[in-house]
């Protein structure tokens, strides 16, 4: 008997949902806004699909209709990756503890 690779991916997916569930519950409420911006940034890992779509296939038809959608997706995902991580960094840099001398 052979197991369809889909089942393996489904297992990873289900387990990752549970990991996400427990990890996100442990996030402190004061960091919920950075949580949203960082999840935004990491979901842009969809760029890997965009890169394959843009570059794969015949090189002479680099701006063929299928590839152009890949390139457009690269731009969108890149905005999100850079914007998401940087704005998260900017926010997290502001969270400071009380100074000792006060």
């Amino acid at each position, binding site marked *: 008997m052979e197991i369809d690779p889909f089942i393996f991916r489904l297992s990873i997916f289900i387990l990752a949902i549970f990991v996400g569930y427990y990890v996100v519950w442990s996030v402190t*409420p004061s960091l919920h806004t950075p949580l949203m911006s960082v999840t935004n940034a990491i979901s842009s890992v969809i760029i890997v*699909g965009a890169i394959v779509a843009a570059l*794969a296939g015949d090189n002479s038809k680099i701006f063929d209709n299928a590839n152009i959608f890949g390139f457009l997706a690269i731009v969108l995902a890149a905005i999100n990756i*850079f914007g998401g991580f940087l704005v998260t960094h900017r*926010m997290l840099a502001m969270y400071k*503890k009380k100074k000792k001398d006060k």
Partner: protein
Amino acid sequence: MSANLLAVFYLISGVLFILALRGLSSPETSRQGNFFGIIGMAIAVGVTIISIGNFSAGFIYLLIFLIVGGSIGAFIAFKIPMTAMPELVAGFHSLVGLAAVFVAISAFLNPEVFNLGFPGKIKIASLIEMSLGAAIGAITFTGSIIAFLKLRGLMSGSPITFVGQHFLNLALGITIVGLIFYLCNTQQEYLFWSLIAISFLVGVLLIIPIGGADMPVVISMLNSYSGWAAAGIGFTLENTALIITGALVGSSGAILSYIMCKGMNRSFFNVILGGWGATEESLKSSSTEQKPVKSGNADDAAFLMKNASSVIIVPGYGMAVAQAQHALREMVDSLKKNGVKVSYAIHPVAGRMPGHMNVLLAEANVPYDEVFELEDINNDFANCDVAYVIGANDVTNPVAKSDPQSPIYGMPILDVEKSKSVLFVKRSLSPGYAGIDNDLFYRENTLMLFADAKKMTEDITKSL
């Protein structure tokens, strides 16, 4: 690079993304977490490029598009004011959604590239996965655009409802399922395009009936959708990093939606079906009668707070609108010089997105260990001399505890009324988003300060 090695690298970046979220469990580890996320992303992008091994003309374009997108993103990230964070996040969600749609389209048009079969003969499983990814991505895209417009004030925040709305949404939902079914049977291209077009429409229809103050739920929900869209594409492309990320983001958004709904004591469906604020407002405005209100000026407030031993600040969306966070911190600094103990109380749904108030206070250099969540500080109101309510309203309304008829009955509120005196900074006596009068305005121990939140706070600082 072999497919197995590639898969291992994707797994590593998936794990790094988990660590990125894990880091957010405390502000000390959060910056490290963000760094893990960046490394994970760099690995995923790097190995994908290497695996294609195409360093010709296409690679140059790839770099150009990456740099263009990256510069736009970096520019936005540095320029955006912290008060505009909800709009920014909504805008970013729309980009993820649209990117998912584009990747699904190119997978549909050019399936050989992704080993999914040939145009017209795409594997059924892949077709279902990419259809789901495209549909959810499209809903995320237009839904987030509407959320963005509402948050930005370019569109009215009041709910837009019409007769048969829910029926229409249901019908469109069934149509989407039907289209996916026919698409699998016939592989016709026009079905795929119709699917995307209808999903765009559903995104708009889903968000327009939801009112402005329910935006924390909407943003969290769209966050969740963008995750499920990414997971759908991840299954299509058989990419572990994308599947793990999609699951993480999807459950993260779902949990945040749940926390926000609980903060309002409403069910998720109640919020999503929308139209709440509109009906209540018309009902209540007629029943409002003139009741005596004590109002004061900045000097009265300064006097009260200077002589207090402890003060609790309750910020709300109004503080964000008035950009009063810096003025507020200056006021607190003067209070501390007078030996007053000051802490901040944050309601879960204060502001327009989860954690909105915390970010604004952090921006104003308020140490995060002076800022408390509802359940941690609520008992302290009984022992506190002055509660300073700035830009919050419904989340302090004691009617939520006393009147079962009230639409906000059962909502957890900050027990502001238990403190010795309450200072309420507000422009007028107008009701809050829920459209109900706040009992607190007419209490014996309440002093209303009618003014702009920022101006009043600055005036108090001057009198201190």
